[in-house]
Each structure stands twice: as C-alpha cells, then as structure tokens.
C-alpha cells in the first residue's frame, strides 16, 4: 500500500491537469504553426484548439449539477464524473474569409496567439517544476 503511494508520487489530480494543459499547449503550437505555414495557401481555413473554455464548463457543471444518490456500489452513477479529463478539440473555422484567395488566416492574430501560447507553456512548465521540487523536498527531508 505504501509502496503504491510512493510510486504514484507524481500522478495526482493536479499533475493530470497540468499534463492535460501542457499537451493542449503543444497541440495548439502545432495548429498555429500550420496556420502560419498556410498563410498564403488559397482556400485554406484556419484551425483552432478549444480546451480552456471546455474545462471551465466542465468544472462549473461539476460544482452545481444533479448527482444521483447511490445506496449500493453496484448502482449506476448519475451525473458528471468528477475529475474527468476534458480533451482538447481542434475546430476549423470554415465560415469566414479574410483574404482575397478565400483564406482566413489573420497573421497578426496568429502571431499574438503564438506568443501567448509560448508564455502559457513556460508558465505551466514552471508550475510543474515547482510541484516536483516540493515533492523532492519531502523525499529528501530538507
């Protein structure tokens, strides 16, 4: 039992959330890079990654939603699963036109999103490092 706890040192809910956010940031980097790469491609439509808004929605739902009362462990679970991971979605904006060649990549927007994503990624890594450092303090006892 204790061994299991030590092995699971780095697999708490906050780690999973951080990992999800870092993966999303990675995915977003890829999507933005692809948008920038195709900035001059006729008929290309930009894509976007939605994650934060979905996570927020999910967490809101968790706090204020109906949960079925279970009197037996074999009963079905009713309501949103707590701590369920939201996975990022890639959506393509097919409706707008920005350039004459039916392309809708706005370079200013893409570049600002690129910078924003980079900063967010750095912040997440910093947070992850902080968490690991805390665990290290516990392990080393100083």
């Amino acid at each position, binding site marked *: 039992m204790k061994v299991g706890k030590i092995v699971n040192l780095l697999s708490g809910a906050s780690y999973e959330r951080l990992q999800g956010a870092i993966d999303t*940031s*990675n*995915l977003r*980097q*890829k*999507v*933005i*890079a*692809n948008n*920038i*790469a*195709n*900035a*001059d*491609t*006729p008929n*290309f439509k930009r*894509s976007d990654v939605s994650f934060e808004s979905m996570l927020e929605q999910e967490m809101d739902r968790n706090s204020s939603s109906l949960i079925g009362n279970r009197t037996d462990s074999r009963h079905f679970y009713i309501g949103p699963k707590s701590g369920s991971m939201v996975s*990022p*979605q*890639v959506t393509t904006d097919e409706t707008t036109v920005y350039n004459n060649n039916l392309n809708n990549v706005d*370079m200013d927007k*893409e*570049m600002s999103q*690129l*910078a924003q*994503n*980079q900063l967010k*990624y*750095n912040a997440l*890594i910093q947070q*992850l*490092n902080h968490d*690991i450092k805390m665990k290290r303090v516990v392990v080393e006892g100083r």
Partner: protein
Amino acid sequence: MVLNISNSFNISASALTAQRLRMDVVSSNIANAETTRGRYVDGKFEPYRRKMVVMQPYQEKSFANALQSELGEPDLGRGVKITQIKEDQAPFKQVYNPTHPDADSNGYVSMPNVDVLKEMVDMISATRAYESNVTALNASKSMFMKALEIGK
C-alpha cells in the same frame, strides 16, 4: 511526444521550403524580365513566360499519420507544399524595336509577360511569410528547450 514536437518543426520547415521556392521563382521571373528567347517553338523563339507557384496544404499519407488518426489523435494539417509551378498565360508585351534581332516583320518584339511590380509584391510577401515561419519555428524550439527543464 517527441513525434508531436518534431511535427510542429516539420510544419514550419515545410513552409520555409515553400516560401524559399517561391522566392526562387520570383528571382527567376525578375532575372528573365527581358529574356526574348525563353523557348524554341516551331522554329521560332518564344519569350520567357512568367512562372507562378501553386500552394496546397500538405496531406501526407504515411503509416505514422494513419496510425495517429486511428489512435484518435485529432487530424491536423501537416504544413504546406508547392504542388506545381504554372506559367502565366497572359499575352506577351509587344514593344516596337525594329533593330532588335527578334523583331518580327512589322518591327515589334514580343517581350516576356513579367510585371516587375507584381514580382516585387510577391517577393515582399514571401519574405514576410518566411520571417513569420522562422518566428513560429523559434517558438517551437524554445518550448522544446523549456520542456527539457522539467524536473531540474
């Protein structure tokens, strides 16, 4: 994970290649703006025709990509590719210059359908696109370097 990061490198790299090729084509057009003997057709010289690139989103059908989409990974674009270089079919400019060796019986010379102004605009556009892709590549690189700091 490593595959994913290198993928964002590849996306930007494909765009760098494409923009560079576009720049090469622009250079060729400007260099040949006065070339009257571009091609020999039916015993007559035809002037140089302006060339244009055709860009398309890159959709590679490889095993790795097929596996990724089967594993439920979202299907992303994989960069850009120049699929062909087309010739501008616009008519040649007719310039009156009877002493020119390629002048016809009326004294007119067919000059290439290259508009240097258009080429300049295309060149600036390619330069800017190249720069923004370098920025994206640098961003990916710095993210990757940051990831190497995890647990330090």
